[in-house]
């Protein structure tokens, strides 16, 4: 059995090795971007069923951003929504035969956690400037600077480990069960894995919102700050 932790390259793009997770990510990107562009070509004020479903997705994302971040969703919708949709699609890509979810590999999850880490800095600096963002590390007093800095790194690491652990473990367990038992035995585990994938996508997006909202709130001196959970 191939270790789920391994990520062997399928081919090389010049000097860069291109593993299977990257190719799967390209497929997911093509599917999502192409599908989005195709479905949003004929948008009208009087919506069709498809448009209503698309608007339901956008409205739900907006509602989650409003409820979680207490801000207008416009600047954050694309990043948060894309994180959720991509992780959801990546987790559920396990349904396709022969496709291993990109999120079951450490590099993809690390890339997502890295983007969230950078997004927290970006939105924090945009809300309060560099000085305001750096000053947020001294909240509630300068003694907390080392702890806040470590917290920023560890919560990013926790994002990475949480998503990777849940998705990888699901794939790992299904692989073990499939190697030991018959063909139909892994199906309940696969269903459970789908549920786990959806929940993990939601958790990842919500935590990204919480981290960004914390940075934005603490970077604004006049705004009452709400300490983000670790």
């Amino acid at each position, binding site marked *: 059995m191939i270790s789920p*932790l391994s*990520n062997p390259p399928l081919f090389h793009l010049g000097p*860069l*090795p*291109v*593993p299977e*997770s*990257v190719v799967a*990510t*390209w497929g*997911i*990107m093509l599917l*999502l*971007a192409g599908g*989005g*562009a195709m*479905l*949003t070509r004929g*948008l*009208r*004020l009087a*919506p069709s069923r498809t*448009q209503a479903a*698309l*608007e339901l*997705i*956008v*409205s739900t*994302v*907006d509602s989650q951003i409003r409820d979680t971040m207490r801000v207008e969703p*416009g600047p954050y*919708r*694309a*990043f948060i*929504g*894309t*994180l959720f*949709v*991509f992780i959801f699609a990546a987790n559920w890509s396990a349904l396709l035969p022969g496709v291993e979810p*990109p999120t079951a*590999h*450490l*590099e*993809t999850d*690390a*890339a*997502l956690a*890295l*983007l969230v880490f950078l997004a927290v800095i970006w939105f924090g600096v945009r809300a309060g400037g560099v000085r305001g963002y750096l000053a947020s590390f001294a909240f509630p007093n300068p003694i907390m600077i080392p702890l806040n800095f470590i917290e920023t790194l560890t919560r990013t690491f926790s994002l990475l480990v949480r998503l990777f652990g849940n998705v990888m473990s699901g794939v790992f367990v299904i692989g073990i069960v499939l190697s030991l038992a018959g063909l139909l035995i892994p199906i309940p585990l696969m269903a459970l894995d789908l549920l786990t994938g959806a929940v993990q996508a939601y958790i990842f997006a919500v935590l990204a919102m919480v981290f960004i909202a914390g940075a934005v709130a603490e970077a604004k001196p006049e705004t009452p700050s709400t300490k983000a959970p670790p």
Partner: protein
Amino acid sequence: MSIDWAALGLQALNVLILVWLLARFFWRPVAGVIEQRRAAAQALLDDAGAKNEAAKAALAEVTATRAGFAQEREALLAQAQAQAAAARTTLLAAAAQEAEALRREARAAMQTEQAAAAQAWRARASRLAVDIAARLAARLQGEAVQAAFLEFLLREIQALPPAARQAAALEAVSATEIPAAAQPDITARISAALGATPRISFITEPALIAGLELRGPHLRISNSWRADLDSIEQDLTHDG
């Protein structure tokens, strides 16, 4: 376990590109159409609100207009009452004037009738007085009366201007027939008074009651009870 940093970088780049692609082709268009619908709904609500306000304003205007109608009705009623009162006053004044005119006309007619009656009664009384006087005078017949009337006649002739005394033929009219024996004397005295010798014929008219008159083509001397009574009666009638 080792991390493939190239794969990590590629995946990060992939997700960033996916964020941009979905923002460009999915999130922004769908959010845009939601915003457009919200704006359209808001515009409809604003329009409905504006129309509602307009309807309220129109209702208030109608209410004010209806109140104006009531005021105008009251004003018209007051004007009609004033016009009726003025017309009544005018009619009463005209009726009073007409009644006054009728009263004046009636009074004038009554006065005229009274005057006419008085005149009639006066004339009747005059005639009655003259008749009484004529009956009384009729009893005064005799030579003395005849001689007195002859003297009156002669004085009247002498009072005439000379030109009026010229006549070729005259009539001497008496109430009773003058005896033929006395006629030459009377003729002579009249001729003497006239200063001429006209031919005088004697005529009898009982209506004279008593007296002697002289009548010619251009001369008439009334000298009898009848002439005096007529003169008195005329004076009495006219004096009234």
